[in-house]
Each structure stands twice: as structure tokens, then as C-alpha cells.
């Protein structure tokens, strides 16, 4: 019913309408990306980029422990953040969906994601106010006499994780909540009729049914977290560098664009692997 055979004039028109967006994406996304991929196979000598095809950058990545450690740090932090965020967000989404009266739910949700709308850079900075040596937490704890010396939280991995979890709890609460309210109450009634208690109903019925939503949210968390430079740079400091920080270092002091390009490709591969793992896992769940 939508479209039968296209006249030549119609086809020209259709291409004409789609062309600007397609050309934009080609020119400013596909071409730059391919250029960067090519560049990762060149190398830097002095301040010059030499266009000789080689795998030096990738070989250096696997032989230089500082670089490889960046990927390991990135993966560790991302996995910790993803797991913690899901564990914190799921109960929150569940309480909002189940315990909060219907007419207040939308408000509770908007409230739960309100700090989401602070500027991204500012959000990390505000955690610095809370976590730094003379920050809110340390002053409170010393004031109460619980600790003598201020805790070193800022400029550690802990601070990075806290900053990330704060952001992603809001995101995941949103995705998990929308998953929970779509669930028909009939499933739970059926489980209860068959003699399941509240815990069994949750574990065998509700949780598996919301798993696709959790996985989608978790994958989103993984992708956004592993590619982020701002939060680790502000909160984590320079102690344990993550991959995006190392990429930015190549650009700055060293002006080693080919190495930055190679590291970006490695970052992308990590995301692709995560996607493949998630996708396969989801498919098994559906079968």
C-alpha cells in the first residue's frame, strides 16, 4: 500500500531528499573514521606522520605495559560500574513501580533523574566538592570524630566509580522502570496461584522477564562508560589512567596521532566484543 513501482522522477526526488543526510554522515563520519583507521597503520617520527603501512602502534600497545594497563583499567572500572549501577538501580526502579502510588510515580521518576540534567563536566566537579580532602564527606567524618586523618578518595579509582555510578543509576532506573511497568500483573498472579512466594515470583518470573531491559541498559552503560574521558580525568586524576585518558595524552604532549588512532580502534573493538557477548546472551534468553 505504501509505495508501488517508482517512476524515475520519484526515485530522483527520493534520493534528493535523503541525499543531504547521507552525504553528511558519509563526509563527516564514515570518511573521518576510515581516515583514522588508516592513520592507525602509519607512524609518528619526530613531529612528522610517516605514511608507511605498519603495525607498530598495535604491537607497541601489547608490548608496553602502561598502554595495556590502560585497557585493563578501563575494563575493570567499566565492569564494576555496570554491575554496581544495575544492583542499585533495580531496587529503586522496582520500589517506584511497585510501592509508590500510581499518581506520584511520574514525579518520583522525574525527581530521580533530575541531577541528570546538570552539565556533564559540572557533575563530576560537584563530586569533587563532596569527595576531596577538605570536602563534605571528610569534614563530616572528622567533625564527628570518626576519622582522624581525611580519607584520600578524590584522585582514586573509587572516586571515578562513584561519579560514574551516580550517572548510570539514573539512566538505568529509567530503562528498568519502563520495563517493569510494562509487565502484565497476570504473570505474577499466575505464579502466586501456583504457590510461589514473593521471592520465588520475583526470582523466577519478574527478573527473567525484565532481563532484556537490564541487558540493554547495562550495554548502554558499558559503551558510555568505557569511552568517557571527563569523569576519570576530573575524579580519578592521573594515578590509574583509563584508555580515553591515554588517547588524550597521545594528542597533547606527544602529538602522536597515529597511536591515538590505534588506541581508538582498540577501544572500539572492546565495545564490539561487549556487543557480541550481550547479543548472544540475549538470544539465548529468548530461545
Amino acid at each position, binding site marked *: *500500500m*505504501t*509505495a508501488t513501482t*517508482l517512476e524515475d522522477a520519484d*526515485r530522483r*526526488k*527520493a534520493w*534528493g*531528499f*535523503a541525499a*543531504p*543526510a*547521507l552525504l*553528511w*554522515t558519509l563526509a563527516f*563520519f*564514515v570518511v*573521518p*573514521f576510515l*581516515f*583514522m583507521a588508516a*592513520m592507525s597503520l602509519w607512524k609518528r617520527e619526530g613531529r612528522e606522520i610517516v605514511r608507511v603501512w605498519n603495525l607498530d602502534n598495535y604491537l607497541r600497545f601489547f608490548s608496553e605495559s602502561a598502554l595495556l594497563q590502560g585497557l585493563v583499567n578501563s575494563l575493570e572500572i567499566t565492569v564494576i560500574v555496570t554491575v554496581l549501577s544495575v544492583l*542499585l538501580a533495580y531496587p*529503586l526502579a522496582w*520500589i*517506584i513501580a511497585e*510501592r509508590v502510588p500510581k499518581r506520584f510515580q511520574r514525579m518520583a521518576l*522525574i*525527581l*530521580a533523574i*533530575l*541531577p541528570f*540534567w*546538570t*552539565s*556533564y*563536566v*559540572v557533575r563530576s*566537579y*560537584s563530586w*569533587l*566538592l563532596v569527595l*576531596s580532602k*577538605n570536602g*563534605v564527606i571528610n*569534614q563530616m567524618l572528622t567533625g564527628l570524630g570518626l576519622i582522624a586523618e581525611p580519607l584520600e578518595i578524590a584522585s582514586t579509582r573509587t572516586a571515578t566509580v562513584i561519579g560514574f555510578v551516580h550517572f548510570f543509576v539514573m539512566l538505568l532506573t529509567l530503562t528498568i522502570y519502563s520495563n517493569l511497568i510494562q509487565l502484565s500483573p497476570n504473570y505474577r498472579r499466575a505464579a502466586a496461584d501456583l504457590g510461589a512466594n514473593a521471592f520465588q515470583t520475583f526470582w523466577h518470573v519478574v527478573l527473567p522477564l525484565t532481563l532484556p531491559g537490564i541487558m540493554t541498559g547495562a550495554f548502554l552503560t558499558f*559503551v558510555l562508560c568505557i*569511552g*568517557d*574521558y*571527563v569523569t576519570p580525568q*576530573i575524579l580519578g586524576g592521573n594515578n590509574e589512567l583509563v584508555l580515553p585518558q591515554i*588517547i588524550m595524552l597521545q*594528542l597533547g604532549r606527544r602529538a602522536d596521532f597515529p597511536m*591515538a*588512532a590505534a588506541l*581508538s580502534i582498540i*577501544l*572500539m573493538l572492546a*565495545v564490539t566484543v561487549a556487543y557480541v557477548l550481550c547479543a548472544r546472551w540475549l538470544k539465548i534468553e529468548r530461545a
Partner: protein
Amino acid sequence: MLRRVFVSGVSWAYLAIVYAFIFLPVAVLVLFSFQDGRLPVPPFNGFSTQWYEAVFVDRKLMAALGNSMLVAICSSVVSCVLGFLAAYSLARYKLPGSALQRGLLIAPMTVSYLIIALGLLALLNALHMPLSLLTVGIGHVVINLPLCFAIIYASMGDHQINIERAARDLGANDFKVMALVTAPMLMPSILAAFFLSVTFSWDEFIIAFLLSRFDVTLPVEIWSMLRSGLNPKTNAIGSLVFLASVALLLILEFSLFGRTKKQ
């Protein structure tokens, strides 16, 4: 009965704790933007608006604010127009390879901003193109176009086709159909795409950081303020940005989404 009270008590306690966690940094940010003193950390010395005054007389900050608005609005308009045209073409004409085209248009969504920015930077450097607000805008269209296309494409249902066909029978050409029939029918989703894209561009850091040189956007300017460490002025500008975003969110909630809910 006792167990139910217990469960509900635990639930509310959990809710309170997580909300406290979520709001803690924002509350601290806003509170100490009114600090009467040089450090935005406890103790709170007293109430003062001096840091807000400092923000408003800071020329660089105000220029960055203007740049951010310019880039956000221009890049969102371009993203919406291109996204709308592409959505119209792909939803109304069956072109060969349309699945591939959709995939291409959505693809930038799956790649981190850092990588998009690096690619553009590498290419611009190789072409000896100077960095400016224009290059930031180009980058922001790359990240917002998929979003605008997806939102508008999703709202182009088949039920609007007959109305468009009627307009065409009455002599309207494609542009008239789009401007006078399709776009007004899809206005809620076009506006949603526009405002979402404005918020993303407004808040975007890494692309703006890597692709700008002399004129910078607000997040980049705030970033350079961070080098001076904890500073109540950063709190003040941060609180203002937060206030502006929340105001925009509330307007959207009560006008746009409120209207679509009623329909």
C-alpha cells in the same frame, strides 16, 4: 502484617538513601555557590551572591554561553531538517538499499564521541582546515542527526499517507506537502528531537574540546576553570546551567509531552 510493614519500611529507607546519593552532589554544588568565602566546601560561612555577580561580569564565560547557544541551536536545526528530509524519503519512497541507508544514518550513535571527534580532527588537520565553532557544529550534527532521524522516522506512520496523498491530488508538490502537511502533523516529535538535540549539543564536551580553538563553548570554558581547583564561581555557573536545564525540562514536560499524552 508485621512483615509487610517491615518490607515497606525497608523500601522507603532504600528510596531515601538512593535519592540522597543522587541529590548529594547537586545539593552541595548549589549550596556552596552561595558561599561567602573563597572555598566551596564546609564550613558554610554565610549567604552571598557575589559569585553569581562574578559569573555575569566574566566576559569569557558569557561569550562561551553565547557560543554554546549558537552551536546548539544551529546544529539542532540542521540535524532536524536533514533528519526530517531523510525520514520522509525513507518512509514514503521504497528506495533500493533503504535498510543500508537507515543503518548508515544510525551508525554514529554506536560510536563514542571521543572517536567521532578524533576522526574529524584527524581529517580536518590533514585538510589544513582551521578549527572553529563551525567545526564544533559539524561534529554536533554528526551526533544529533541519528537521534533526530530516528525520532522523526519512528513517528512517520502509514496513517498519515492518505492525508499527504489528498494534498498531492489537490495540486501540492512535495515541498508543500512536507511543509504544510507532514511537518505540522509530526510537530510533537520534531520538537522533541529538536530539544533533545539542543540539550545534547549544549552539554557536549569532548567534541567541542577537540574541535574548537579560540572561541569555545560553555562546557569547555568550565573545563578550563577547573584548572584553578575548587572555586565557588564554578559552583555558580554550574548551578545556573542546572537551573536552565530543569526549566527547559519542565516546559517540555508541561507543554509538549502533556499535549501528546492527551491526544
